């Protein structure tokens, strides 16, 4: 069965091969394991980009295939990051606290350690107690499960409410946007238990690991590549069969699918929840590479950018989402990072830091108007051209 799936979807194989090649090349060029042509910070950028590609694949599933323009998937991404961040921060702080307490005459008691960690973590928000939501922060296994469960359950509850009442189209988009806005406002509060606008920091340090960042960054890079490969494979498999037919049917004509006897709501809910879980995993891999997560990460604008990537890349084709996310986010950081050369027009100098967003916004309008299938559409065109060329 699996063979027939790959056979019917050669693009999946091509993608996986390219991804493997890319991973290999980066590994060989890296500082940690290779000749050091690619700096550690750039490895992190690439690893983060792979995570963004993974959430873009999820976005493509929910939007490109099921037709639900969610403007809230970064909420799930952020929650995934927070869940892993809690363990990273707790465990690392615990080690620091234990080592500093051990210098005392008496061996530290569990209570002293707990109080010490709480003071270290929550001192900035004027608290010295662990909030209830940190109950499992000492267990990596549970927090890893929560990376999937928390976004999944939020998506399940929110989706159940929204789909049940047949909120569709732009209404649903606005509602998902409200969801992520609500979450970010909630997280901004000190009382949220997640350090308010300070967020969680120091996440790049793996507790108990003495390896240098150049090595750790490669581990995360590989993990991100693996997650992207598996996520891509999973989504490609999901959309390839009858399930894919049904959700594309929902996208094109929801009522018709309903009259065929499919419970449209269940399908939407399933896709929404699945993509939320994928987003959570992507976030859990992203933020340890970024080192810090704060509530601004889940602000509505982030999710809209996600839609922009997928639209520019070309929705309804998974490689399009990957191309869009990788291209736009890398080009964005190139322009806004001040690396792009300014253009001197004589009377005015275009500084890309200032003008990049304008360029992005306008090109986005142009893509929407004139190239609804995005950059992925170009790939399609090339392939079709080749096929036609071969036929004649």
């Amino acid at each position, binding site marked *: 069965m699996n063979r027939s799936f790959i056979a019917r979807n050669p693009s999946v194989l091509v993608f996986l091969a390219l991804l493997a090649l890319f991973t290999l090349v980066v590994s060989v060029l890296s500082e940690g394991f290779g000749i050091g042509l690619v700096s550690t910070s750039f490895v992190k950028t690439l690893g983060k980009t792979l995570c963004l590609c993974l959430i873009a694949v999820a976005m493509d599933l929910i939007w490109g295939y099921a037709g639900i323009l969610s403007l809230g998937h970064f909420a799930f991404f952020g929650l995934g990051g927070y869940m892993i961040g809690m363990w990273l921060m707790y465990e690392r702080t615990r080690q620091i606290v234990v080592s500093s307490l051990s210098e005392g005459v008496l061996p530290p008691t569990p209570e002293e350690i707990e109080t010490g960690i709480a003071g270290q973590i929550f001192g900035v928000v004027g608290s010295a107690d662990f909030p209830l939501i940190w109950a499992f922060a000492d267990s990596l296994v549970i927090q890893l499960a929560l990376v999937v469960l928390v976004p999944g359950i939020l998506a399940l509850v929110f989706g159940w409410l929204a789909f049940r009442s047949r909120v569709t189209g732009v209404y649903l988009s606005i509602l998902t*946007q409200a969801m992520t806005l609500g979450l970010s406002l909630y997280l901004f509060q000190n009382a949220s238990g997640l350090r308010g606008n300070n967020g969680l920091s120091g996440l790049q340090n793996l507790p108990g690991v003495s390896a240098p960042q150049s090595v750790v960054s490669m581990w995360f890079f590989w993990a991100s590549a693996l997650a992207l490969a598996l996520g891509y494979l999973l989504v490609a498999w999901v959309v390839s069969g009858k399930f894919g037919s049904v959700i594309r049917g929902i996208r094109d004509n929801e009522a018709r699918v309903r009259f065929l006897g499919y419970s449209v709501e269940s399908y939407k809910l399933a896709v929404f929840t699945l993509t939320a879980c994928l987003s959570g995993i992507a976030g859990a891999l992203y933020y340890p590479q970024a080192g810090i997560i704060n509530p601004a990460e889940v602000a509505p604008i982030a999710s809209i950018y996600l839609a922009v990537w997928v639209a520019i890349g070309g929705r309804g084709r998974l490689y399009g989402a990957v191309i869009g996310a990788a291209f736009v986010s890398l080009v964005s950081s190139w322009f806004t990072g001040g690396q792009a050369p300014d253009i001197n027009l004589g009377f005015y100098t275009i500084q890309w830091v200032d003008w990049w967003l304008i360029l992005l916004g306008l090109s986005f309008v142009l893509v929407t108007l004139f190239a609804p299938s995005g950059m992925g559409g170009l790939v399609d065109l090339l392939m079709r051209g080749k096929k036609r060329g071969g036929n004649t």
Partner: protein
Amino acid sequence: MKTMLLTVLSALFLCHGGTAQAQTVQDILQSQRALIEQSSRRTIGPAIDAIADSGLAQMQSVLEAWQAKDMWQRLEDGFFFAAHKTADGSYELTDFESGAVIGTYPKDALAQIKPNSGIRAMIATALVRFQLSDPDMARRGEALDSIARNPEAGLLGPLRAAIPSEKDPTLLARKLRLERLMTMSYDTDTAARVAAITAMAGDLGVDFRATLNPILTTRIVVADAGVTPEGNIAATLVPGEAALSRDAAYALLVEADKAQPVLTPDARDAGLEAHIESGRIAGTPIAKLDTETARDAAYGALAAKGLVPLLVHPPDIDASLANHQFFSIYHEPSQQVTEAAEAALAKSQSRVVASQAIDLGLDALSLASIYFLAAIGLAITFGVMGVINMAHGEFIMMGAYTGYVVQQFVPNHTASILVAVPLAFAVTFAAGVALERLVIRWLYHRPLETLLATFGVSIALQQLAKNIFGTQARPLTAPSWLDGAWVINDVVSISYIRIAIFVLALMFMGLFVFIMKRTRLGLETRAVTQNPRMAAGMGINPDRVNMLTFGLGSGIAGIAGVAIGLFAKVTSEMGGDYIVQSFMTVVVGGVGNIWGTLAGALMIGGFQKGVEWLNPSNTLAAQTYMIVFIIIFIQFRPRGIIALRGRAAGD
């Protein structure tokens, strides 16, 4: 006037026991000479009192000279004079009694009396009684302000004395009110105090509540079981209840030497560390002391040997607390007064709560007006045309920046606002028409794509504004006649600018209804919305109608931008603050219906203020709850408060 003051003052001192005799100013000053020379804040009180209470009219100028550091002492005889520096550096002395110049002396024959700031403040208080009857109304007002700031028992008499002579009704009312408030605190007659309190019960003034609160302050007193302490008991406290925690109660017992202090963990650990004997504490290896119980046990062992103070265990605390009673006792000794004050305060509090509710209602109304203003343009573009315009917030921003630019050229704020409003409309109308022609026109049947394309426009416009105006907030100043607030009482007030926004919202509402129901454009818009083909068949140009309608919605957003800019900061990101709320307003209200938008704005504004009221410290929480509420609300009314049904709903 002065004679009257004199009689009043002397009458006052007669009833105070009448120490006043026919004395001169200098007599009195000489009698206090030692204190004045000492010039110490702690001891100067009697001297100032003696001067102020002397009943001599000239004493006001004495005090003023003293306060202004213009009082000098002649070294040869120690007499006090008002001194005035002459051109050659010597000093011209003036007699306080007669006001006559008595001669010029070199500086070394004189000593300046230098009151420090504490003494000067006391002099100022003493001066108040003179100022209360000053012919200058402004000074009488200042004197009242000064008393209200620092009321004290000694001022009650002078204040009462200054009442009959007061002619100005406003000042008279203030004096009477102040007199009553001071009666509550300082009158020696309990009945008079109770009467004053009861008479003002329910008053909303902050000053009234500020007067009552000190009367009702309490202290906590510990007594052995079965013993009732002296004093005006307010309540019996039970440790562990809200008014007195167990820890605090036990701390009181410790303070009163009625119980052993509880050992802090640090003190316990210090005790342990002080008794280490060859790697062991009380026989236990140090390494084993890694739990709280182990440490307690080791400490207990040390205590049993008498090496450290005993550990207080929870049962000991329980027993100590059970053996004692805790009372809160009013500082105020008179029970009648405290009872009256409690009753009066309760009455005031309930009225304050009622007023706060009204105030909250007004707040909610003005917030709703803002949401309505921000959303009304959307109600047109999204509600009527079904076009989702993510750049709507940027049109609001554009309107606000137009106002800012106009103010750079038209300095008069009233005129600039009058220019800015139509100009903002024109600018955003043009921008809206351009957006409709260039982008939205091509996407009429692809609402999600419209959303995305207009979002692209939104980020481009935002960045453009940032490039032009920078990232810092720009001011858009309201005309001065919009400053200030309409104060209804000490609790309820509403700023004029909010009233103006409310009025503006009403005007827009009217304008919208008028355009939609009474004009050709409205008719055509409704026709095109309902059935574009048929409308086209009847000679309506749907392109033109769409363009104009979109322009109208955008133009209104521009005007809303000017209004919002007047009270919020004008930044390139301000649009984003309103866009989600605006969509919520339209969606919650029910799409395609202006009354729905109004209802949505009222509901969201009201709900948000309501939550803020329950949790005033946290406006973020209010917004979070509001969004959760909206998501749940949509469950029950997916089409909004005012929903269209059937074919018109267009599904």
